[in-house]
């Protein structure tokens, strides 16, 4: 039952990633074709474009939601692959905890970076 719930969340996170990462990829890597959300022109990673996107609360929330969805989807997927190798139960438990700690740690770190990045952009 618990795995069924986690699997359903895995699919839901995938649906969120489809839209948010799709938008991110379109902005960052199809910029010559689409040229969206890069108001300063040039390359999407130019500081002026990073600041322009960072000033937007919608983008900041987008980053945090995408971060959470991608971490869960990716780390749960990795957990499933590792569990298929049939490790001993104590190792399974240890792996789960390591992945939870990595996920929560990176989510906190990434959320901090997105939020502070928003504040830095707002005063630039």
């Amino acid at each position: 039952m618990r795995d069924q719930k986690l699997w359903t969340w895995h699919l839901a996170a995938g649906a969120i990633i489809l839209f948010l990462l799709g938008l991110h990829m379109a902005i960052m890597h199809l910029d010559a074709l689409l040229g969206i959300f890069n108001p300063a022109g040039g390359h999407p990673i130019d500081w002026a474009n990073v600041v322009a996107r960072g000033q937007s609360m919608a983008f900041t929330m987008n980053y945090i939601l995408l971060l959470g969805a991608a971490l869960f989807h990716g780390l749960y997927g990795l957990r499933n692959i590792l569990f298929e190798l049939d490790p001993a139960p104590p190792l399974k438990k240890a792996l789960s905890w390591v992945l939870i700690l990595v996920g929560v740690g990176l989510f906190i770190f990434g959320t901090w970076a997105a939020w502070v990045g928003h504040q830095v952009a707002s005063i630039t």
Partner: protein
Amino acid sequence: MAKDRRHPNRLGIWGWVGGGSWGPDRYLYTLHRITGLGLLAYFLVHVVVTSSRALGEAAWEASMARVSGPLFVLGEYLVFVAFAFHVINGVRLFFAELGWGIGKPIEPIYPYRNCLDDQRPWALGALLLIAVLVVVGALDFFVWH
């Protein structure tokens, strides 16, 4: 539940590519896993690298300078290709999980059909869409810039 020692149903990593008479769907499954693992590895590093924008322009520029050059552009393109495959094949799998595009249960009358017969056009459509994205991505990465 006791494990069946004769047929453990566990081929491990080998089962991704061999151990049976696999069809194209098995290789899509394998590619889905490989691209997923690749995207995860990239993403974990990406979170750390791009967090430098919280420290201001100088830190951002220094961080981006460390990951620039032709090799990184090629690497980013491979990430784009992995993304295109994983997302579009993932949508196909999502629909299959919900029972869409796999046909209805039928009586086993010769010549036998299975759900893969209904699923195959979706897989081919997904591959076509992936190919379009891969080509458009290549143009954007290497030609239009």
